[in-house]
């Protein structure tokens, strides 16, 4: 009589029953799970010759970019159209590089508050017109403001009307302003911004800052306090100076031609004029040389966290694509192989991400790893080993093909929807990329060689500054040579 698979209370009941009537043998403790014994053979499916080798993936085209066309309207507004007749929605993205965040605390959230006020002012008008429903998405980042509207394909005209109501609003009043503040404030309370707080700290270590730093990052941490300092007059002034058709772009995506889009825009925004005041862009901080290690003081009960931050090339840099492929390798290929070491054999590292982000400073690459308590040091050692591996030129053609496919897969996902297409093209505009950036992307990616990536890896992964932030309890940083000379601060 055995009682396997039992939680404690059931096991107790079973044992009591077993002891009470053992002689009679009337009570039999069947396995609590009720599972039968596995049947034999374990694998009844017959084997076959075709299973001996996994089929190879055939190299084919990996990205389909919709047909692109563009023009500049009389008021200076650039119009870009990504025509795709198979999609059931239509999206319009407004891209404004001048409406980017100020980099000093008093004005840090002014760009977001202005856009929120425009949307709040427009909402009552939109609510009155229930003939079409349009989804709004807004983003204010270091490269500017992007506002995306999406409706079902048949509502192109109404999408255009909604766009006009937002960009050419009624006078911005206190009601819209207070509603915008409430909405934005609530969003700040619940959002988990990227980069995360720990990454932001890593950026501070990389670029250098102190507790009195008044830059955007600090302002966002004190979001509500910052918002309270802003006035409606500042919002109106920001709108007047930064919102203008010149230097802005509208991207249409979906079953729409250039002529149709132009007709909508000329009808709704043809009278829009403006002469923006060109604000000086914030001066980016440059990374401090060398490698710096910091431990965070907060304690995490279940895991160690590790963030590595280093500068990465801007979208206009010749190194951009090469680094993006390295990032793919770091996130997807070695992380998977590291997973073999770090996770699968030991249950060590679970979450692992590696991405470049637009920040107010240089563009910054963050690798984030979550590990079991006390094991962040091993993960760091493994990660730095991969950096060396790439810089030493041990990249194979197979690795490169993987990185290419993975990089292009992300773009293919974006171009699967009108929203993704419009946003990708708007971001290209905000980053000053050429109009044919996506049309030529696959060709340019395929031209990259292992040698070119090795040069990029040496420059950015081996020779460039680096910040390492570890948050954990029992750090075991190991004896990797690269740890030598890293300064440690409390």
């Amino acid at each position, binding site marked *: 009589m055995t009682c*396997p698979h039992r*939680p404690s209370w059931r096991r107790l009941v079973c044992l009591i029953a077993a002891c009470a009537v053992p002689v009679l043998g009337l009570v039999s403790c069947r396995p*609590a*799970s*009720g*599972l039968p*014994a*596995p*049947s034999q053979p*374990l*694998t*009844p*499916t017959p084997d*076959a010759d*075709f*299973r001996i080798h*996994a089929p*190879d*993936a*055939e190299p*084919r*085209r*990996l990205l*389909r970019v919709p047909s692109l066309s563009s023009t500049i309207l009389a008021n200076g507004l650039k119009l870009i159209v990504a025509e795709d*007749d*198979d*999609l*059931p*929605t239509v999206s319009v993205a407004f891209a404004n590089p001048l409406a980017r965040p100020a980099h000093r605390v008093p004005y840090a959230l002014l760009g977001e508050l202005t856009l929120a006020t425009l949307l709040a002012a427009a909402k009552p008008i939109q609510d009155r017109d229930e003939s079409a*429903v349009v*989804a709004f998405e807004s983003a204010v980042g270091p490269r500017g403001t992007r506002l995306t509207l*999406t*409706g*079902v*394909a048949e509502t192109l005209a109404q999408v255009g009307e909604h766009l006009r109501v937002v960009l050419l609003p009624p006078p911005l009043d206190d009601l819209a302003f207070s509603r915008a503040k409430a*909405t934005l404030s*609530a969003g700040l*309370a*619940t959002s988990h911004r990227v980069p995360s707080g720990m990454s932001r700290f890593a950026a501070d270590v990389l670029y250098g800052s102190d507790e009195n730093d008044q830059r955007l990052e600090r302002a966002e941490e004190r979001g509500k306090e910052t918002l309270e300092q802003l006035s409606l007059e500042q919002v109106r002034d920001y709108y007047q100076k930064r919102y203008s058709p010149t230097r802005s772009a509208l991207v249409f995506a979906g079953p729409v031609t250039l002529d149709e889009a132009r007709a909508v825009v000329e009808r709704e925004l043809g009278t829009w004029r403006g002469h923006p005041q060109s604000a000086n862009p914030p001066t980016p901080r440059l990374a401090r040389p060398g490698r710096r290690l910091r431990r965070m003081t907060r304690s995490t009960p*279940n*895991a160690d966290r590790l963030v590595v931050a280093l500068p990465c090339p801007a979208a206009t840099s010749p190194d951009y694509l090469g680094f993006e492929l390295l990032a793919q390798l770091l996130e997807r290929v070695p992380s998977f*192989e590291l997973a*073999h070491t770090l996770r*699968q054999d*030991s*249950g060590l590292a*679970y*979450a692992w991400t590696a991405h470049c982000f637009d920040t107010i400073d240089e563009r910054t690459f963050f690798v984030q790893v*979550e590990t079991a308590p006390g094991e962040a040091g091993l993960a760091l050692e493994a990660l730095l080993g991969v950096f060396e591996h790439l810089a030493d030129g041990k990249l194979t053609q197979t690795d490169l093909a*993987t990185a290419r*496919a*993975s990089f*292009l*897969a*992300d773009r*293919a*996902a974006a171009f*699967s*929807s*009108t929203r993704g297409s419009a946003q990708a093209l708007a971001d290209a505009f905000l980053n000053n990329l050429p109009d044919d950036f996506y049309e030529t992307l696959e060709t340019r990616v395929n031209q990259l060689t292992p040698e070119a990536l090795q040069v990029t890896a040496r420059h950015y992964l081996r020779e460039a500054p680096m910040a390492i932030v570890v948050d954990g309890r029992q750090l075991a940083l190991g004896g990797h040579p690269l740890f030598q000379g890293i300064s440690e601060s409390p």
Partner: protein
Amino acid sequence: MLALLGAWLLVPGQALAKEVGSEQAVVHYQLPNGLDVVLERDARQPRVAVVVGYDVGWRDDPPGLDGLAHMVEHLSFRSTRHLPKPFEAGQLLRRAGATDINGFTGPDDTSYQEVVPEGALPLALFVESERMAFSLERFSTKAIELEKNIIWREGALLHRSPEDQFNQDSVNAFFGMWHPYARGDDEAEQLNYADLASAQAFFQQTYRPDNAHLVLVGDFQLEPTRALIEQYFGSIVASALPRRAAVNTTVTTHARSFVRRSLARLDELSVTWPAPDPRSDDGVASKLLALQLLAKLQDALVRDQKLASKVGVSLYPFELGPMLQFSIATEGDIDKVLPVFEAELGALWRTDWPRRLPPLRRQLVLSEQLRRASLIEVARDHLESARSTHQPYDFRAHLTQLERVSPARMRALSQLYKADQAMLGWLLRVGGTSARLAVTGIEVVPR
């Protein structure tokens, strides 16, 4: 547009292959071994979403072995007879440019997915057929011990935030602690009792072609793909063990309220009702009602009265009892939120439905089209529909059903969603101000 709204065709068995025309956007058939197959061609990108779903979820965990379904899902990733290196299948897929590689153990089903370049579709089918037919023999005691550790850490790292625990509290309180959906804090302890034999038997009862669905959505050629499916999956033989019987516990009771006191960032109130089947007319009407109430709550609680930071709504499609849940998070005084919620709920039944229904319908259609921009989401719609109705998902029929929702039906919903019939959940920050903070740990008040 045609790809999304196209017709589907049921083809029972391979004998009717000649009836499958290339014009059909969606094709549905079963292999002789019982595998249910749904194929939808969608050429927006040269990629294919591959989803394999098994009709087994955590509700089917054997008594005393909570977490076994999740563990078997993990074990099936490790290796197979013909892909014997650790995690070789995943590496091959990644090297081929696959994304969205993942496995999910849900309350009612377990599914595996990847999105691959069209040239890697044979590899993806090979990998999934290996999982179904040849992964069991690679299970080992060592692998089980490693996965116990990994699952514990997965839970510790990803699923144990106060908000996640509060969500599980909702399920436990709603269904009752003895319901198969309920999960206690001792899942890791229970998994310690899992052994090789139990994992093997559970796999044999559930990971089998007559308990599975294969869904492909993307840019592929129909006939060659059908031939590949036949090659890789047609020869798979189910275990001699009988299929595991589905758990079908009905929902008879749920709690009136519960409270969790925790180290959360924000206080949270959840309001939960039993909901109709999401595919029924009342289920569709409930979605429209949820959109209307959500908009009113956002305006009142977030924008105007500034009482809340966030308002959300979810319709959980649990097969043994769907539930509709609103959640409101606040940095402020949580005790002031409920009266506003009740006032907005009361006002809901005075809505001018003839005027509001058309824009609500359009809003729902748009949100579903935005979601279905992802190939995986389209595939998951088919999987869910195939599991519950034995038919592929028909978006056009869904639109027709939406048009059928009448003002009278919306008014009739007032009988389903009464304030005094809701279950209330309170997640309270330590150091918050709610009068309910006298509660320590979790307190459940039965109905």
